[in-house]
């Protein structure tokens, strides 16, 4: 099939989708290609921390400034994706109080509100914290739901004319002179092949940036850093908890719905897709976070997961990089002579909108059009709605519940299914809270397959899908199997390998 577009965006993470929305609001049509589902890379595998920027105030004030600016904007345009929890930077007896004082001063310099709280004040806010703590500093951190954020951006972009091709992979790039003329792509599910002619191409593939550029012999030098996280079976605190010390491993605990997420590690990785969480990382995360919250030591974990951060190494030649050290915006016209190619990578989830704005600005400049960004003032549709939890609670006992852990109703899932365009099980799980709870989908995915079958939506052997899901689930569960998590696993194995003989 032959397609034609003005702008082709590669990558369906927060950045790529953010660009699609930004351009669509400027009236510039685009087509986005993503080889998996939305958020298949770092956007869907991060800590869910809505940074105030405080974490970077001492080490990287520029990045911190970007964070607090975006933090203020996002509170207005995507409030439904954010839980405004606040964050505490906790000082323990072994932590340097000079650092704390520098931290507070640095926050003040870039206008991040920072309030020093005494030990008693801190413990009255968060009783699970270690009683030996010395003090804490309150900052406007929060928790963010990346799925709601990115899917909301995608929906709004689509409503404004952007197009998406998911589960579609680029197979080759065709250069003509100093421009990329077209790309060939393949639908990985349906098998369709596309030839897409484009005037401009934006490489928003994040950790895959070099992998993509390799096709035309270019490289910008993205370093890959694996960050691993652990999800606890309970929510320990109302607020985000940070260790008040220079950023290090295992010093952040982010509340997320009914759980807490412990993170992170930082391990250089060569692989962007094949990576494992090591026992050493698990040990480190538990050891470090339980210094702040002692109960973590004996708690139940429901899953471990990891993401790959693309880190752009500054110091490379070329002057078209973004102003910030947080992300890299590269005009390959100036850098490499490929006139219609832009790469955007690095950055933080909280700065996705800014990255999209800067990329779109650069694109507009190249296109010679003069339209301004509006994403900093136009709220996403849904910004007025309240959190889903209230509705989920209200529906208990009235509707059939597919997922008893996260109270996901059958009707809610059917509504997602009716929107269509979903190509596999993971697509459904990305759009609901199915499989996010204690049993990690061991019951509800079986039920979901039954519902899909009743709706005539299963075209393949659904037990193959079920087995594939159990294998995928295993990757996250295996590293945390001890204590009571092991009890549940014995149950699940007894069901699927025993009773069902899958």
């Amino acid at each position, binding site marked *: 099939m032959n397609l034609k577009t003005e702008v082709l965006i590669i990558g369906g993470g927060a950045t790529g989708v953010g660009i699609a929305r930004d351009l669509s609001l400027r009236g510039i049509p685009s087509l986005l290609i993503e080889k998996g589902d939305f958020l298949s890379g770092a956007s869907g595998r991060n800590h869910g921390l809505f940074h105030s920027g405080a974490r970077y105030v001492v080490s990287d004030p520029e990045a911190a400034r970007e964070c607090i600016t975006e933090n203020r904007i996002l509170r207005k345009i995507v409030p439904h994706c954010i839980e405004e929890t606040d964050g505490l930077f906790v000082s323990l007896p072994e932590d340097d109080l000079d650092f704390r004082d520098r931290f507070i001063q640095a926050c003040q310099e870039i206008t991040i509100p920072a309030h020093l709280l005494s030990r008693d004040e801190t413990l009255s806010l968060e009783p699970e914290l270690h009683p030996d703590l010395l003090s804490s500093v309150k900052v406007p951190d929060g928790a963010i739901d990346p799925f709601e954020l990115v899917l909301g951006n995608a929906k709004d972009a689509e409503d404004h004319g952007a197009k998406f091709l998911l589960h579609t992979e680029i197979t080759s790039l065709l250069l003509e002179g100093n421009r990329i003329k077209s790309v060939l792509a393949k639908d990985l599910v349906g098998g369709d092949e596309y030839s897409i002619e484009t005037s401009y191409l934006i490489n928003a593939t994040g950790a895959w940036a070099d992998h993509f550029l390799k096709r035309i012999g270019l490289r910008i030098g993205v370093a890959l850093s694996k960050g691993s996280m652990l999800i606890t079976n309970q929510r320990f605190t109302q607020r985000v908890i940070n260790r008040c010390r220079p950023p290090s491993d295992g010093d952040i605990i982010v509340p997320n719905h009914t759980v807490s997420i412990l993170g992170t590690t930082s391990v250089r990785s060569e692989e962007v897709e094949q990576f494992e969480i090591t026992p050493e990382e698990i040990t480190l995360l538990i050891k470090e976070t339980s210094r702040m919250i002692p109960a973590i030591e004996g708690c139940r974990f429901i899953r471990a997961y990891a993401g790959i951060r693309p880190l752009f190494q500054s110091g490379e030649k070329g002057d078209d990089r973004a102003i910030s050290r947080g992300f890299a915006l590269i005009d390959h016209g100036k850098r490499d002579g490929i006139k219609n190619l832009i790469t955007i990578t690095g950055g933080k989830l909280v700065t996705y909108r800014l990255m999209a704005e800067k990329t779109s600005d650069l694109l507009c400049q190249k296109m010679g059009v003069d339209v301004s960004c509006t994403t900093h003032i136009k709220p996403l549709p849904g910004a007025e709605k309240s959190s889903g939890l209230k509705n989920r609670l209200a529906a208990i006992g009235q509707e059939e519940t597919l997922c008893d852990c996260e109270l996901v109703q059958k009707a809610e899932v059917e509504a997602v299914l009716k929107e269509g365009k979903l190509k596999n099980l993971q697509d459904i799980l990305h759009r609901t809270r199915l499989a996010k709870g204690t049993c990690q989908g061991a019951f509800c995915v079986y039920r979901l397959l039954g519902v899909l079958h009743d709706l005539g939506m299963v075209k393949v052997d659904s037990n193959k899908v079920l087995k594939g899901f159990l294998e995928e689930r295993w990757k996250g569960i295996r590293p945390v199997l001890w204590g009571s998590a092991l009890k549940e696993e014995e149950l699940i194995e007894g069901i*699927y390998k025993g*009773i*069902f003989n*899958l």
Partner: protein
Amino acid sequence: MHYDLIVIGMGLSGLMAAKTAAEMGKKVLIIGKGLGTLSIFSNTIDLLGTIPPTMKMKDGLSQWVHDHPEHPYGKVGLEKIEEALSSFNSFFPPPYTFQSKNDANSLVPTGAGTFRLTYLIPSTMMKGINLKEKKTLIIGFEGYKDFYARRLADLLNCRGITLSLSENPQTEMTAAALARRMEKPSLRDFIGAEVKKEIRDEELIGFPAVLGVNDPMGVRKDIEKKIGASIFEIPGLPPSIPGMRIFNRFKAKLIQKGGNFLSGYSVSKAIPRKNHFEKIEVFHPPVTNSYSADHFILATGRFIGGGLLADRERIVEPLFNLPVSYIGSQEEWFGKSFFAQHSIHGYGILTDASLRPIDENGKPIFENVWVAGTILSGHHCVNEKSREGIEITTGYWAARNAMKL
């Protein structure tokens, strides 16, 4: 109170041990937190699912016993396995019996649309083994979210329908609630009439395994009469109603034989004197009672019920503090694939041939303690499909050994 035998754990192995001792005229106390994994996993009696249906179970098992001396079956031996199974069967006289077809494994259809090789099949499930040869209709119920008749039917190459039992189709129903309602003639009338309307040329009708708790054969017969076709149950997600039937049967018969049941409490402490156990303590808030016995059988199961506990470094047996066979630490206990045979499931309590726990030198640790059930080392009951067989045979053998001394 003093007993000849105290059995700790109320799953199938504990029940078999208590039954065996009670039938020898001994004074028995069985104590447990709940129904064990009977109400979770047990539907049919798996003995050894690795034996193909074309082979007589006895032949396959005899080879297995020979090849696996450290397996619980290797310790109990073929003859005692047969004795134990017939002892189990004596609790289930007609009409609700457990039988094999031609003394071999058979394939029963499951709630996931798969087949499982199993040995002794309860009467309500028996006809399911003919599913491949006969036209079959599978019935599900709106609101019973653990059973999807149409998915099942497609995978098993037959036809499936979902009946609505309530005016509000969104109302949820659990397996236990359905099973209780099945015992009411009015619901059976309704189901009979509805199925009769739907049935075409099917000779067999499959239902989820919820055809009543107390009188499943009565329920089945009544619905069969109304529909005019043979019906069978399909085992599925927990809770297992057929497992509860087994439990209820054991409980009633044991009490009849003078056994004492103490359920809902866990043993808080076991008190040894040298190499001998004297008594256990049970916390009944606000008091602690102690029960003494000449003999003890530990049948507390694996991780689910707390018979074994694991952290990242160690696996322990918390009650008698018996040594657990394990190698390495957490990251080595599990394979890369969910479906692999994980080494952790082969770990457990090491015993001698009479099922007494032993130390690293192979010497019995306590002179009056025996161990039964899945807590034993040397088996992979999930992968092997040997769960109930291990529970029945080791429960029986532990009690026989304990009581003959």
